[in-house]
């Protein structure tokens, strides 16, 4: 219990210490998870919208597959990516193992189904009508997509926030593909896991608090994009 309160104190000290290592860890976390969220959104938001308004054979199976992949354990995503990019793997020649790039790839795999699933769900409910209006007003394919994006922004926002939440908070995938190398691939969650495994609870909680505070700010920024209502 005491550790929780101490965690708050430590979090404060951590932030005002301006320790370079701490800030590097925070920045790398943000870089990796935000990039993964951004890359995923780039594919998933259009994919979710597409799924929501277009009918095709086996659509039901695809949708159920996506919902299922929402339950993909981060460790498995990490492991599969690791095996693909490892020295002996098919993409070994790229030399990606234990790099931030590998961490981004693994998190992207994890986040894609989440954003796709949530955006699909919102589109299914309102997408058809929006598409029709766009059509009647003479919008081309790209304009229709951008209108759908605008009108469905609340759902897109929820999808992205949920996806970001998954990315920033997961530890299994980045731990495996990144390796938690000090000064290079160590991020907030891997630090937390490490500190926890070393029994340094209050420091672990301190970093957790910092992580949550940062998420609060980031959600605020994302929230402003979907505003205007």
């Amino acid at each position, binding site marked *: 219990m005491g550790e929780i309160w101490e965690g708050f104190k430590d979090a404060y000290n951590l932030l005002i210490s301006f320790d370079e290592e701490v800030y590097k860890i925070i920045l790398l976390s943000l870089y990796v998870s935000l990039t993964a969220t951004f890359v995923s959104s780039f594919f998933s938001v259009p994919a979710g919208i597409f799924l929501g308004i277009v009918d095709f054979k086996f659509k039901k199976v695809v949708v159920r597959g996506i919902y299922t992949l929402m339950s993909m354990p981060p460790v498995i995503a990490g492991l599969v990516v690791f095996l693909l990019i490892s020295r002996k793997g098919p993409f070994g020649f790229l030399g990606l193992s234990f790099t931030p790039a590998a961490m981004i790839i693994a998190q992207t795999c994890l986040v894609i189904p989440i954003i796709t699933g949530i955006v699909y769900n919102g589109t299914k409910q309102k997408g058809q009508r929006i598409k029709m209006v766009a059509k009647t007003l003479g919008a081309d394919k790209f304009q229709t997509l951008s209108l759908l994006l605008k009108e469905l922004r609340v759902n897109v926002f929820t999808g992205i926030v949920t996806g970001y939440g998954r990315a920033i908070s997961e530890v299994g995938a980045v*731990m495996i593909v990144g390796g938690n190398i000090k000064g290079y691939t160590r991020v907030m969650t891997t630090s937390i896991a490490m500190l926890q495994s070393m029994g340094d609870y209050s420091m672990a909680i301190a970093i957790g608090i910092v992580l949550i505070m940062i998420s609060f700010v980031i959600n605020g920024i994302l929230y402003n994009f979907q505003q205007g209502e």
Partner: protein
Amino acid sequence: APTEETSKEVKNSSIILATTTSTENSGLLDYLLPVFEKDTGIKVKVVAVGTGKALKMGEDGEADVLLVHAKSSEEAFVKAGHGLERFDVMYNDFVIIGPKNDPAKLYENASNDVIKAFKLINKGNAKFVSRGDDSGTHKKEKKFWEEAGIEPKGDWYLSAGKGMGDVIQMANEIEGYTLSDRATYLSMKDKIDLEILVEGDNKLFNQYGVIAVNPNKNEKINNDGAQKFIDWILGEKAQGLIKAFGKDKFSKPLFIPNAR
């Protein structure tokens, strides 16, 4: 009241053992504990963590008994009153493992001298993966660097903050060196390309100890069970079992019992 009695019985019938990953991952506990449970009727719940965390769990009274390998920390633990008494149980040894082609030429020049080997790694600018997690192994490694007069820092030195198995895999992936306990290395040998390059130095001795957590921490601590476990594992039967463990598979025991 009858409920109190049953709850007491349940409490007596199980203990929490905090230990290092090496004892669990090597399969030793899977091999020993069913016998213990049959002998005493006490169920053992194994929580496998690093030595640092295991000691912390003891300090917090979250575990009843510890089986760890960092002798000086263990003695400090007992001295601070967190544990009752420390006993030697068994030992194995540490080894330096590395890629077959051995770029820093450890096997050639330092096959039984760990300090020299560390110097060679540093001089050859070969990659070294450190546990970096304050575990028993990590503490040992730090001591060697100190003795070698090297401050491990730079691109060649990767501090991973992970368990032994993970670190071995990392070393395997980047074709680097690492310090490992023999048991974990042997249990993973088939899956990796690393080989033992340095062994046999007295400094690489790895002693495991058992400690009962001081029952004054809280009333949930099952000291009776802990004592029974200590008595049992130090006893002849268990020591014999330890000696036999792994012989068939590795032709050598993974741990050598040395209880007095």
